[in-house]
């Protein structure tokens, strides 16, 4: 008991290292697959990006079209184009936007922080609301609160969130006039003192973050509830109670900690939905994030930007899953690396 690091810890560290290495190696074929699918998607297009630019400026001469094709490498065979493009992606060069000629990487870079902030805020919001709700209703299964949760869960799964956003805008933005319904800051915010700016920012975020979190509340609280119910049935909970521990200690220290383990994994899995949803919410609330950029690029058929965001979105998901897995590994004392992943 004197030594700070026991053999078990060494084992765990070792396990963790080999697990991490395996986990990274596994990501390579997946990353490769992601680029392949992106490339296939873009090449589904009837005609080529050059013909699309031709549509924009019908006066373009055949020579100009040829030059364009050369510029984008469209005169090369498909596999060669893929390899070229892959080489660019690996060096994180995502090409230039068709719309304004700016590097796609730059365009994404200035939009990404807003989207990531919004998603993190709504993740936090989901967790802080859904976990207490889920735990409480697991403690009182069959109660009115528990039934209300079931109704809420079904609503959350079934309601189109963009419609909810519209309703919230009508009620809180238009009728009551409490909250702004678009953008992330008011006009002339630069002249305000700092605290007013923060309040302005918060006011703008309340609606989008709440609505973004809505579907998550349902999923997460239901998951927490069933996970908690499962744990409460375990022998070690009975043991803890039999020892005469106060109920609060049993619930918080013994049950909750174990019940929350699978929730971490769910967080990782929820990420693609959240990021994908940002397209809808950012365009409804006019938030200048990556989702809105994706939407406008899709409307303008700005292929390089579409591809860039597709790849970045997938990589964010992978990163989220990786973080969730590592967190799980760190906090779960029971986990051992399986030999065959």
């Amino acid at each position, binding site marked *: 008991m004197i030594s700070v690091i026991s053999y078990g810890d060494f084992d765990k560290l070792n396990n963790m290292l080999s697990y991490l290495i395996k986990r990274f190696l596994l990501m390579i074929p997946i990353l490769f697959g992601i680029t392949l699918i992106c490339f296939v998607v873009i090449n589904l297009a009837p005609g080529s990006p050059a013909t699309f630019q031709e549509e924009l400026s019908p006066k373009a001469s055949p020579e100009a079209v040829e030059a364009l094709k050369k510029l984008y490498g469209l005169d090369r065979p498909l596999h060669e184009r893929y390899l070229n493009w892959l080489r660019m992606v690996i060096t994180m060069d995502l090409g230039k936007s068709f719309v304004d000629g700016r590097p796609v990487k730059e365009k994404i870079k200035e939009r990404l922080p807003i989207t990531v902030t919004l998603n993190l805020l709504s993740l936090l919001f989901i967790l802080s609301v859904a976990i207490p709700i889920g735990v409480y209703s697991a403690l009182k299964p069959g109660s009115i609160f528990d039934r209300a949760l079931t109704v809420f869960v079904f609503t959350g799964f*079934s309601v189109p969130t963009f419609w909810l956003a519209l309703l919230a805008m009508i009620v809180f933005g238009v009728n009551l006039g409490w909250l702004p319904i678009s953008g992330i800051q008011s006009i002339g915010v630069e002249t305000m003192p700092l605290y007013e700016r923060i309040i302005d920012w918060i006011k703008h975020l309340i609606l989008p973050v709440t609505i973004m979190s809505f579907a998550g509340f349902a999923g997460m609280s239901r998951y927490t509830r069933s996970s908690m119910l499962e744990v409460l049935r375990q022998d070690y909970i009975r043991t803890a109670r039999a020892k005469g521990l106060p109920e609060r200690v049993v619930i918080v220290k013994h049950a909750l900690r174990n019940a929350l383990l699978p929730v971490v994994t769910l967080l990782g899995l929820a990420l*693609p939905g959240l990021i994908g949803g940002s397209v809808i919410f950012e365009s409804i609330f006019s938030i200048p994030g990556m989702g809105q950029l994706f*939407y406008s690029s899709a409307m303008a058929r700005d292929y390089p930007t579409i591809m860039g965001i597709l790849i970045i979105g997938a990589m964010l998901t992978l990163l989220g899953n990786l973080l969730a897995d590592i967190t799980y590994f760190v906090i779960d004392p029971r986990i051992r690396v399986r030999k065959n992943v």
Partner: protein
Amino acid sequence: MFRLILRRILRNNFAIMGLFFILCIFIVAVIAPYIALYDPYKINVYKVLEPPSKEHPFGTDELGRDVFSRVIYGARVSIKVGFLAMGIAIATGTLLGAVAGYYGGFIDTVIMRFVDVMLAFPALFLILAVVAVLEPNIYIIMIVIGLTGWMDVARLVRAEVLSLKEREFVLAARAIGAGSGRIIFKHILPNAIYPVIVAATFSVGGAILIESGLSFLGLGIQPPEPSWGGILSVGKDYITVAWWMSLFPGVAIFLTVLSFNLLGEALRDALDPKHWAED
């Protein structure tokens, strides 16, 4: 067995409500021309943005078209997309999952890595990218929603097949010389059908939600064809003056998806033997 399951479903009030509403929507979609009060495409410049009234129960839209009739016709789009996208997703997922689980080894690895790759994309991004590249129409939307929604089914079927393929009746079939295709389709899959039915029910609702989202963004069903998401999309522009355009189509989506989810939940309870012991 079938009657037992039916009884279990009918015992669940929510399931009956869901089933009833799904039937209603079906009937509405089929007989839309007979119950619509007006031609859903008929523009009337004298009746622009009228609030709900006796003549127009759901009001009129920005071109004076009857919103009620457009919502009725919108049911056709949602039902069509919901079921066909589900069919594509279930067929793809079942096939790939069964092949992966049955053959194992390298084939399994490749298919399951493919599942991982597909799951890594934020679903809406991938769908939007394809729809933006191809001109969106109802068939492309169905196919894209189906082809981006099969991964969970594949995982589910694979797990079922893995546990079924070592069972005696499969070994017996193999012993009498049945081919792989026959074993998979005749012996294994029928025994894995229940979870697939449950997943299928949920995925109809999911597909309807995605379609309405796409149409809302203007990258789904194209105007003037009436769709619930499309009406909401225009409604957003008139949100301060015409709340009815934003309310009714949303209620229609919500109730339809809710019905499929309630039915799916009831089916899960009725079909999963694990739940039987509880009552």
